[in-house]
């Protein structure tokens, strides 16, 4: 059902809770948001104390270029990820073609490849000394780089392609989940009313899936905005590059925090606009699992086309990088395979799963509190709690250090004064700091998808459950969580893989002698010795695959098909 409320003041549904129990949810949501938003507030706070005013210089020189590049990069990535993500999600959900069952999960694979790794791989393949150009030179008898033109991978276009290829799975994942959750009868009704398949897709399927697609796209946009590795490697001057320049070269952390704050507002505006544009929509789906979906049976050429459409992103975004990494991993295996390496892999695994679980619990708390109290205030809280995602990791790391080290030193002073104890730094520089940073950073991912999932559960479920005597918490555990199983798993999966790949915050916040796979790759990559980091890069990719396949299966199983 897609009910557009006729007038704004018409209450959508009665409040889901009343009385004292509601307070508990409200307070826990408030507290959580406060803690999670602290790092972001710290950065905003830093922005008030720049060493000097950077703006006259920036506006005179580089700012127009930064803005121009940033906007073009974001637009490019948005178009690319929407095209690939939505179309493939629709194809694997609704059409029958060779390899469909494999593509269901295979389309997620590029997600396991960090953007900085794919950038490295393609540079290696497509630069002058790479196999592609060598073959071309042999073929045509060219002798050096001045004899011919070859597209420059280290460019804005190259960066758009690289980032788009590894980020489209966000859109794919969320749109597929949305398509799966749509009641098949909607589609049948539209068709029986005379709409073509395409028209039904555009007028019924897409609008209903829009909240989910928007969540996916906004995640993509935020990751694009805060990407530093790829744009730095490709020498594309975006706002992030300007931010780091102000921080590292001009030594002006406050100025850098100002740029970060502006980037934040940029994201906030985008998200608000999207929400505003569908402010009058409310949708609930009573998911009907009994009614099977009949996938389209297509003609042979169309089936081939479907297979091709789904093959291309998988090959470009996953198969090619994996092959190149595999090649190097074998060549440099002896240098790469050490006991230290195994410990590193375990560190990554432990941190990422802890963080995935934490964000899941917090995300669920926040999203459900919002369902219970659908007020303007709660909506703002939700937005605040997910701001960490829009910030470059290194800046967020500083935002984590400020309150955390402040708290540690405050506690140390207090304990010293009262009991003569020396607690030192309790949390700073521990794995806890990392899990906290990951939670702050990736809460947007889990909270966003859980929220959009919850929105589609009709309130009558809550009402029925409550009237049968369940508490709000009981309703969450016994009703919503089973219904949302697929969504919850998706959320956890995405956060897990994201944490495995996280680099800049990990570098700054980690304890002594502590490596994750990402930092392990980086120490070689940053010394222009990327081939040595192929093995850990490959492991990150492979470690991402297993949960991807498992979870994709369980998402698919949530609905019966024929």
């Amino acid at each position, binding site marked *: 059902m897609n009910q557009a409320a006729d007038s704004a003041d018409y209450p959508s549904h009665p409040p889901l809770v009343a009385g004292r129990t509601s307070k508990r949810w409200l307070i826990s949501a408030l507290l959580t948001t406060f803690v999670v938003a602290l790092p972001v507030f710290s950065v905003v706070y830093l922005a008030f104390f720049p060493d000097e005013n950077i703006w006259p*210089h920036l506006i*005179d*020189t*580089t700012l127009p*270029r930064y803005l121009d590049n940033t906007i073009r990069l974001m637009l490019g990535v948005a178009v690319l990820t929407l095209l690939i993500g939505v179309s493939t999600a629709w194809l694997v959900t609704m059409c029958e073609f060779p390899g469909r069952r494999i593509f269901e999960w295979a389309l997620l694979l590029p997600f396991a490849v960090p953007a900085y790794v794919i950038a490295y791989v393609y540079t290696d393949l497509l630069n*002058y*000394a790479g196999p592609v150009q060598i073959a071309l030179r042999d073929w045509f008898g060219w*002798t*050096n*780089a*001045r004899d011919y033109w070859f597209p*420059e991978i*280290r460019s804005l276009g190259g960066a758009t392609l690289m980032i788009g290829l590894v980020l489209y799975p966000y859109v794919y994942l969320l749109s597929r989940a949305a398509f799966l959750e749509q009641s098949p009868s909607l589609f049948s009704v539209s068709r029986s009313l005379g709409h073509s398949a395409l028209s039904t897709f555009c007028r019924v399927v897409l609008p209903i899936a829009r909240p989910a697609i928007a969540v996916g796209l906004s995640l993509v946009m935020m990751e694009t905005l805060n990407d530093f590795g790829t744009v730095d490697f*490709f*020498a594309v*001057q975006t706002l992030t590059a300007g931010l*780091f*320049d102000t*921080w*590292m*070269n*001009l*030594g002006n*952390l406050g100025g850098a925090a100002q740029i970060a704050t502006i980037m934040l507002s940029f994201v906030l505006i985008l998200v608000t606009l999207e929400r505003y544009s569908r402010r009058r929509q409310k949708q609930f789906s009573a998911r009907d699992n009994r009614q099977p979906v009949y996938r389209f049976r297509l003609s042979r050429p169309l089936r081939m086309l479907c297979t091709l459409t789904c093959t291309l992103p998988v090959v470009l975004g996953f198969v090619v990088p994996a092959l190149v990494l595999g090649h190097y991993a074998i060549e440099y295996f002896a240098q790469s395979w050490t006991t230290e390496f195994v410990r590193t892999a375990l560190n990554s695994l432990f941190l990422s799963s*802890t963080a995935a679980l934490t964000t899941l619990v917090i995300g669920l708390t926040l999203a459900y509190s919002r369902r219970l109290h659908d007020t303007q205030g709660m909506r703002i809280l939700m937005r605040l709690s997910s701001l960490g995602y829009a910030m470059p990791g*290194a800046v967020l*790391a*500083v935002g984590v*250090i*400020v309150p955390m*080290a*402040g708290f*540690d*030193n405050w506690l*140390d002073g207090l304990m010293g004064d009262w009991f003569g104890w020396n607690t*030192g*730094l*309790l*949390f*700073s*520089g*521990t*794995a*806890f700091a990392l*899990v906290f940073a990951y939670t702050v950073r990736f809460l947007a991912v889990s909270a966003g998808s859980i929220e959009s999932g919850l929105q589609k559960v009709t309130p009558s479920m809550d009402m029925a459950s409550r009237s049968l005597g369940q508490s709000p918490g009981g309703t969450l555990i016994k009703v919503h969580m089973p219904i949302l199983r697929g969504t919850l798993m998706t959320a956890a999966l995405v956060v897990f893989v994201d944490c495995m790949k996280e680099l*800049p915050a990990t*570098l*700054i916040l*980690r*304890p*002594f*002698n*502590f490596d994750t796979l990402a*930092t392990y790759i980086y*120490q*070689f990559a*940053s*010394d*222009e010795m990327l*081939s040595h980091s192929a093995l850990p890069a490959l492991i990150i990719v492979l470690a991402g695959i297993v949960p991807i396949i498992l979870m994709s299966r369980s998402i698919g199983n949530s609905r019966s098909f024929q």
Partner: protein
Amino acid sequence: MRMKPVASALLAFLIMPLSAHAEEEVNIYSYRQAFLLEPLLNAFTEDTGIKTNVVFAKNGLAERLAREGRNSPADLVMTVDISRLNELVEKDLTASVNNDTLTANIPAHLRHPEGKWFALTTRGRMIYTSKERVAEGELTTYEQLADNKWDDRICTRSGKHPYNIALIASMIAHHGEADTETWLQGVKDNLARRPQGGDRDQIKAIAEGVCDVALGNSYYYGNMLEDENQRPAAEKVRMVFPNSDGRGTHINISGIALTKSAPNRDNALKLMTYLSESKAQHIYAEANTEYPANPKVEVTGVVASWGELKPDTLSLQTIANNREAAVRMVDRVGYDN
């Protein structure tokens, strides 16, 4: 409520790394990769029994140190580029070290006047030329890079990279801002492509025929010669010691500083002196083909084969002071565009 023991066990595990304080150790925040330090630190642990702990990051460690304040576990900061060391001094995070061994081993121009940092190695900012397309002696100074002759023939990494910023800062010290800006504009106009990649990529670009001239630190060339896959590219390229007949080649340093809050001060001092002595200085030079900061240590191996480096004796402090001017100049010229 049965979650509580589980939760507290998890929390204990998460914050555990801090409680391992029993043995003799020294804690290092490093802007240099752990694998570069490993041979040195292993030798140190073997000789002294003191364990070393490292956190490596390319940025943010100064902020972390500052915020951790008096309770910071870090004893030492190891870094490359004079500006980084200077930043630590400016933020008042480093302690003065007055140690006879260190002052004897490290020449005065390679350490802070009050001992707030010490250089451990130096590296030259070299000019690389194509052996085929540029004659020996055709290009010998940084100043000549702005010459029309090299139009569309030069490759460099980003003008904003600390190594290029330091070079530009040294040009400002020698020629003043106005002349340096004209020079930088000249170099920009001569670029064969938009600045990109690292120093090795510029050397490779010469081998590939994209350009004939490049800038890069000496050890990148040395490391390429020692890597089987990269040697063919390096062998097509000649390394030039710029301004050898004049003021000397611009050098930068890797260095070390003691933190104010150092909890293991004695061990930290032991490591500092150890790194300035000949054994460690040799390892440094051999592992990363850099020049030892200790003049009594003889240069060996591939570095020695390049011949004598005549360093520009301009004070490193001056270079650090000109950094901001250099950064803004790069923006004004639009060097990276």
